[in-house]
Structure formats: C-alpha cells, structure tokens
C-alpha cells in the first residue's frame, strides 16, 4: 500500500506577530495509515498542536500562515481544496477532540442537542432520529444513563464525562481519522486511564486511525504504534514506539526519557536537559537543539541536520543519530 490515509508533507507554518515572524513549523512530514495510532510528542511550543490545527483547517490565519507543503487526505491536498470540500472532509472524515472539553461545549444547549445538531445538519436526519443516534453515541462512549443524560447541560457533567461527550460528538459522522489533542491532560489519573482505554477501544472497534498529540511519555507508551517527536517545529525523531523507548536515536528524545521520574523505581538524581526550548522568533542556527545538547559539535551549530533514514521506518534529525543508536557516543 503506497498511499497513506493522511499525509502531512513538508509543511511550513509561520506566525506573524508584533515582535516578528515566528517560524512555528519547519518542514514537518508524517503519515497515518488506516487503523493505526500515531503519537505526536512534544513540549509546549514544539508545534504539535499547530500541525493538527492545520490539518483540521482551524488554524487562525492571520497570524498564522502556511508557507509551504501539502496535507493529503486519501491523496487529495486539503490545502488546495475548495472551502466546501474542505468542510466535508473536516466533519465527516477527520474529527478532533480537544483538551478543554468545557470550553469546547456550548453551555446553553443540552449535550443531546449538540451531538444531534451535526447529524441533522450534515446527514439531514430528523430531530427524533438524530436524538436517538445521540443516545447511541453516548452509550458507545459509556456514559451511564445516556437516555436521561442527553437532556443535561455540559456543566452537569464531570470533567471525564464531558470529555466523553466531546468524543461522542466527534464520532457522530463516523470519521476515519480522529485527532486527539492532549485529550486527558486536564483530567485526573484514574479518569485519564478510563478515557485512554475508551479511545483505544473505539479506535479498534470503529477501525479509525488516530493521531494522539501529547506531552506525556507514559500515555504514548500505553497506546501508540508509532511516535513522532517534535522539537522547535520539526520532527526530530520518528520511530516505532518499542524501538524508540528502547533505544532513542535523537539526543532530545534520549534526554526526555532520562529526565522523567519513574513510578516503578526510586531514582537518585534526575538527568536533566539543560536550558530552555528555543524562542522561535530567533531560532538557533543549525540544529535547533544544539544549545541544549550534550553531544553538540561544531557541525550542529552550522548545519541543520537532515532527516537520516535509519531503516525500518525510523528517522532521526541528528548528525550523530547512528553513533547514538550504536552507543558509540
């Protein structure tokens, strides 16, 4: 199979701010195949959410500006489509779940109303049918007593239940791709686990593909098939999840994995990544990670590392990726 379900190809995005041009996305490429889960991992400012917003066509432009690249869905470029076609893809093929469920729901309508609205508008369902389907969807995301609860307003739900409502809404049009942007960050640990389980189950049952955007290395390890690590608007490492955790091929990934405290062991001092993420108004020369990298050489300051193919679908944007993998540095 050569054609991917969704493919981001060499995407560049800038933000024009009062203080200058911020190069937020600098040549990001990734792909998603039917039925798989890709995790996009990154810290704040890495560009992980901006890429998703560009896919969904909800990027604020201005200040945002897509300067280069393509986003292909089933081979068709979303960026050159008409508005009408784009909207169709956005609602019916690709859906998104956000971190903050409370602000994504309208407080003055019942949740049933909000779930069924899409169905009536897009699918031309009758009011009664749409409501019935809304109950089914809420059942599917395991909201207890869905039949009664469709008449409730968002504030009457707990944080975890609200996130389920959001998921039910995104499932309304049977999307093929679900983008989940930090879906559990605002939730408690036990509730977080419930939601992640639900997402994994839905993905399996409905044969959806999922892009999971997160900063949490634990969540990724639990559900993802593949992982793309972003730093300063680039994908610095892309690998199968097992390979990446076992043997990271980029100093940033390695640093991240070493710096998180472990639940299953009492560590001594934590390894740290020195310094701060770069200011994208004035990114460092060469490799954006070089000021924080303990392996940095002269070449890292002068030359932006290309994405090195390490075989097996594995890539790394580090001049010394091979050495790092082999344990030579």
């Amino acid at each position, binding site marked *: 199979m050569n054609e991917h379900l969704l493919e981001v190809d060499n995407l560049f995005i800038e933000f024009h701010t009062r203080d200058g041009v911020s190069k937020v996305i600098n040549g990001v490429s990734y792909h998603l195949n039917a039925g798989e889960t890709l995790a996009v991992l990154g810290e704040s400012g890495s560009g992980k959410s901006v890429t998703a917003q560009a896919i969904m066509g909800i990027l604020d432009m201005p200040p945002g500006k897509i300067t280069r690249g393509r986003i292909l869905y089933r081979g068709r470029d979303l960026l050159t489509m008409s508005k009408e076609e784009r909207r169709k893809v956005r609602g019916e093929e690709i859906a998104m779940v956000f971190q903050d469920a409370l602000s994504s729901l309208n407080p003055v309508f019942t949740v049933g109303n909000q779930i069924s609205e899409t169905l009536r508008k897009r699918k031309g369902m009758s009011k009664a049918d749409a409501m019935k389907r809304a109950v089914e969807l809420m059942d599917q995301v395991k909201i207890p007593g869905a039949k009664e609860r469709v008449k409730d307003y968002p504030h009457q739900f707990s944080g*975890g239940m609200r996130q389920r409502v959001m998921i039910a809404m995104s499932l309304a049009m049977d999307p093929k791709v679900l983008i989940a942007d930090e879906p559990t960050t605002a939730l408690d640990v036990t509730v977080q*686990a419930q939601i992640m389980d639900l997402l994994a189950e839905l993905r399996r049952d409905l044969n959806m593909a999922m892009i999971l955007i997160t900063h949490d290395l634990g969540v990724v390890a639990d559900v993802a098939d593949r992982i793309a690590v972003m730093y300063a608007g680039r994908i610095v490492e892309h690998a199968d999840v097992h390979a990446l955790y076992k043997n990271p091929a980029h100093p940033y990934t390695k640093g991240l994995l070493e710096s998180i*405290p472990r639940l299953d062991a009492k560590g001594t001092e934590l390894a*740290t990544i020195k310094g701060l993420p770069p200011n994208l108004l004035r990114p460092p020369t060469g490799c954006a990670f070089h000021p924080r990298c303990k392996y940095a050489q002269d070449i890292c300051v002068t030359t932006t590392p290309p994405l090195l193919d390490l075989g097996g679908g594995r890539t790394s944007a580090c001049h010394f990726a091979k050495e790092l993998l082999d344990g030579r540095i």
Partner: protein
Amino acid sequence: MAESETILQVENLVKHFPIRQGILFKKKVGEVKAVDGVSFELKRGETLGIVGESGCGKSTLAKLLMRLETPTAGRARLNGRDIYRMGGSELRRLRRNVQMVMQDPYTSLNPRMTVGDIIGEPYEIHPEAAPRGDRQRRVQELLDLVGLNPEHINRYPHQFSGGQRQRIGIARALALRPEVIVCDEPVSALDVSIQAQVINLLEKLQDEFGLSYIFIAHDLSVVRHISDRVGVMYLGKIVEIGTEDEIYARPTHPYTQALLSAVPVPDPEARAHREVIRLEGDVPSPANPPSGCRFRTRCWKAQEKCAKEEPLLVLRPAADPHPSACHFAEQRHVVA
C-alpha cells in the same frame, strides 16, 4: 535519619466550607468536607509527599498549613506549638518558618514588581531578618542559589520562562530561611524537560539547608522520586500513609492500588504484563461523601461493613505494617 525529631505534627485537621444559599440572609444548606480529619507527622529534613486527585482536599490542606484558611477543628503543631493559636510576634515568626512554593509560576509573581522586589519583599515585611543595606546582596545570593543570573535583579517576571519563574518563587520562599516548605504542585505547570531541573533544585536546597518539605502533587512518579514518605488522600482523608517503598511497592489500600495502576508507564513493553485496575465512575462530591468508607462506591472489594463502619487509618499487620484505612487491606503488587 531514623530517629530525627518531629518538626510538624498535624492532628485531626478538619476544614468544612459552608454552602450558603439565599439572597439577603444566607442560610447554611450544607458543607463541603474538603479536609476531614487528617493527621500526620513531618520530621526534620524529611519530604512527605501527599498525592490525590482533584477534590481530595490536598490544596485545602496546603492552605491550612500556611494558615491561609482557619481549620474547623484540629491542630497543627510546629516545634510543639499549635500554629492556629499563634498571634502577634509568634505568628510573624511562623511566617518566617513555614513557606510555600505555589503551582502556577505565572500567577504567583506580581507582574508589576521586579524580581529584586519580589524576592526582597520578605525582608521588607520582616525587616529584622536582614539589615537594609544587606538586602540586595542577599537577593542576589538567592538568585544565584536557585540558578538564575544575579544580574537579572531588575527584570520583570514576564521576561522569564515558566521554569525560571518557578525558581524565582523558590527563591522568595527561601528568603527568610524557613524550616518547612509546602510545595503545592510545584512542577505540574512546567514542561517535562524543565520539571527535572526544578525537582533537582528542590532536592539540592533540601540537602543544603536541611529543609523539610510537604510535597503535594497529583503526579505519582514525581512524588515517589522526591518523597521519603507518602500519604494518599481521597475525599478529604488520608487513606494510606507510609514510606515511599511501602506505598509504591506494597500498597494495601484499594484506592492506592487503583491510582498506581492508572499511571501510564513510559515503557511500551510494560503494556502487556501490567496489572490493570480500572475504577468506575468519578469521585463523589465532597459535599455529600458516602457513608462509612468514602471509597466504597468505586471499590471492587466493598461489602456491607464498608457502608456502615468507617475504616480508620491504623496499622493493619495482616497486610503490611503501615497505616491503611481499609477494612480489607491486603498487599497487592501493582507497579512493575
């Protein structure tokens, strides 16, 4: 530090917030039992971690310990003296002795004050702590201590990143050389790669000044890393307390076990052979907690006894000799 002295002793601390209704004459219609009988001890130089989910009362506990709230009942004794009975100069000494590092580095620093003014404010409030001429030097020392450039004394908070601001907050808390620092989610607002820096700093400062920490957080991995002992809170009560090893390696309370099981482990290999305990539903409202054991509504072990009889936080020798508030406490290995 097996036999070190107790610096802070909290006994049966209770905080109920009244729920009032009515326009002109507000009538009390109920109360939120935010903290409902919490007891623990903190030894000198020790870190006590407090974990729990939102609504468990851990933030209210922090405010009580800082005397930002007055308790409904209970005592907290610092070096033997009840902090809620202090007034005047004794209260001022308490302020010098117990400090806090807050969660949000963006809202905890006054945006209109320079870093020098922020870290120097403790000396203005307690002029006896440092002679006026000495203050700038002390502020610069503190900046240096927390890993910031002492020359940045005239900058404003917005000129710093989140992690740096948290360092400023730590410097402010250290200014009066307190014995106890309450850390309320000090790293949860920070990026992963910055968290480790701040955690290491807190540990370094503890060694250097012999500080005692109450470390409140929802991140169980962070708490394990930094704590000597850990208390697990659920709906205003501590359900299990013990050494870091007792809580993480040999938990006996079902809630602790569920909590530990829910934490995603950054190891894809662990996916297959991890024991999964999934709790049903959400935490009940602290305004109307379940009778008996508060966890029973979500507990797979719950029996009639749990609804009738409240399990006390006592030693359960049958399980593992550390206090656990479960009638059916039993050791279970959850974390790999």
